[in-house]
């Protein structure tokens, strides 16, 4: 703006015990801190007086900051035993000062000590973890009941939602999952050949890759990708519906959100995970076969023949048996986290992160439990 900005200031003229403080310039937000320090300075330069007159006729512009400071000033002087009087206020300035005076300042709550904050934080986390567990179990119970309901009355089941979810999870997820397991299959085979070559046992790379891919690798990679791709999507979808009261809208229409939103998603995951795991296994073995051929010099027919003799139905089924359980873990965590979204955008982000992190963590824990279980039954 082509306007001259008059800096705020004050002048004090004394007359015995009475002082006239003439304020001038612009007492506005533009002068921010300068104005604040000015208001701090004023009582100091005023010194000892009995009566003070605040002459504000020289103020060119006044806004809430200026008015607030003048109000605080007269309060401060008043509490020091000075009788303060406001003089020559313009009409619009007087209205503003009046409006500001009517409000008392709120006293900010004193911050708690950091030690208490940390202890409170730890306590809160422990309580939340416990609640998480209870909620998780009761949620899975709810889902089981809802699936039971769907089985009893299949005509009310939301087939369209299931098919749509299957497309999103399995069909659209397949390419990236196949690509990743293919690459990991290549890498594992290359490392295996590189290390085993020193013992002259290159051929054993087929055993290594075959067993690890079918039993663990394909499933784990799949579960991690699905948690990242679909778990996060579930949480975000359900969470934003929660934010905009769409979940409440379902409830008041007599629709159970678990039936409508959760069951189709979890069922789709249960169907999709074994399919994806199978595809991932094949891609991993294919990658390993290619690497063995070009890098290890193992001809494809040798690779396949050895694979046939090493791998039996058990190795193949271990991965597939685990898949639906991983699906339940990922789906349940994603949906619970979605339902826990509060009103803010920040909370949505937190829940999506929590959903992916918790799902991947739980997938690995459950995989460990399965490893112990299968080892003890010698499967």
């Amino acid at each position, binding site marked *: 703006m082509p306007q001259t900005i008059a800096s705020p200031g004050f002048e004090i003229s004394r007359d015995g015990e009475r002082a006239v403080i003439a304020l001038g310039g612009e007492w506005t937000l533009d002068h*921010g801190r300068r104005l604040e320090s000015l208001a701090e300075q004023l009582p100091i330069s005023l010194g000892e007086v009995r009566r003070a007159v605040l002459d504000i006729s020289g103020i*060119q512009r006044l806004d809430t900051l200026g008015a*607030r400071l003048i109000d605080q000033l007269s309060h401060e002087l008043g509490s020091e035993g000075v009788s303060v009087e406001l003089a020559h206020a313009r009409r*619009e300035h007087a209205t503003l000062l009046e409006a500001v005076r009517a409000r008392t300042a709120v006293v900010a709550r004193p911050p708690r000590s950091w030690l208490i904050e940390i202890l409170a934080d730890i306590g809160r986390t422990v309580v939340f973890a416990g609640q998480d567990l209870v909620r998780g179990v009761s949620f899975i119970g709810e889902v089981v009941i809802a699936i039971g309901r769907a089985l009893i009355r299949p005509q009310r089941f939301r087939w369209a939602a299931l098919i749509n979810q299957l497309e999103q999870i399995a069909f659209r997820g397949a390419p990236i999952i196949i690509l990743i397991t293919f690459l990991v299959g290549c890498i594992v085979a290359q490392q295996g050949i590189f290390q085993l070559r020193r013992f002259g046992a290159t051929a054993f790379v087929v055993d290594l890759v075959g067993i690890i891919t079918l039993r663990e690798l394909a499933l784990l990679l799949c579960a991690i990708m699905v948690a990242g791709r679909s778990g996060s999507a579930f949480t975000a979808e359900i969470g934003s519906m929660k934010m905009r009261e769409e979940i409440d809208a379902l409830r008041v229409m007599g629709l159970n959100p678990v039936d409508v939103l959760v069951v189709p998603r979890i069922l789709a995951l249960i169907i999709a995970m074994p399919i994806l795991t199978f595809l991932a296994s094949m891609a991993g073995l294919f990658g390993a076969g290619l690497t063995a051929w070009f890098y290890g010099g193992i001809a494809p027919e040798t690779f396949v023949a050895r694979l046939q003799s090493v791998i039996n139905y058990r190795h193949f089924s271990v991965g597939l048996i685990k898949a639906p359980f991983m699906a339940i873990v990922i789906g349940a965590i994603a949906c619970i986290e979605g339902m826990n979204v509060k*009103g*803010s955008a920040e909370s949505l982000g937190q829940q999506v992160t929590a959903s992916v992190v918790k799902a991947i963590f739980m997938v690995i824990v459950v995989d460990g439990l399965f490893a112990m279980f299968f080892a003890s039954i010698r499967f």
Partner: protein
Amino acid sequence: MPDATPPLAAPDTATLPKPIIRVRDLVVGFGDKIILDGLSLDVMAGEILGFVGGSGTGKSVLTRTILGLIEKRAGHISVFGQDLDEMPDAERRKLEKRWGVMFQHGALFSSLTVAQNIQVPMREYLDLSPAMMNDLAALKIQMVGLKSDAGEKYPSELSGGMIKRAALARALALDPEIVFLDEPTSGLDPIGAAEFDILIRTLQQTLGLTVFMVTHDLDSLASACDRIAALADRKVVAVGSLSEMVASTHPWVKSYFRGERALARLKG
């Protein structure tokens, strides 16, 4: 520019009628649909202008075009006597300090408390101590008629009326000269709406605001607005006081201001 508006340093001139926002021959459209066609409107300094129009006729579009959220196809908009198109970016940022906007649904940042919401523009534009910012935020919260503990609440914990008030407090954070209100009383009960009208009036007089208010509310138009502009057929078809609106011969204005609800209101 034909209107050589004097610099705004002298506050006394704020009471004299002069256009603070000047819209000329504005054309706005999306795709092949023209929403506003040759719209002209003046908003005078220090007035509360109520802007009415049927649903979907482009009331919010005009507001958003003035604010620069929607591109215009043709026409001129000048604010404080400066053409928005000819304004360099730095000037434009300065201008944005001088207006405040209250969106229809509040548009409060959901991850910040009400007090933090009010402090967002303060932090961005002002050099103030944190204590003073807290104090000013608390002051604004009280000025819009919220309880002081509302400052620590998140938008999701507020009722509809409280969200409107909090959004108004945020619009007032920088002590703007112009405030845009998009349907400030929609979704409020009649008592809450009447209180809000009085609040806008009071704040306008205390802070010397110019208010541009998009509204559907006949009560607001009657009790809060100095002038009314009616939008129909993609342009402003009538501007003036409520009685001038009632006297208008334009069919839409006629049906709006002489409908049963309007007549009941005007008689009462």
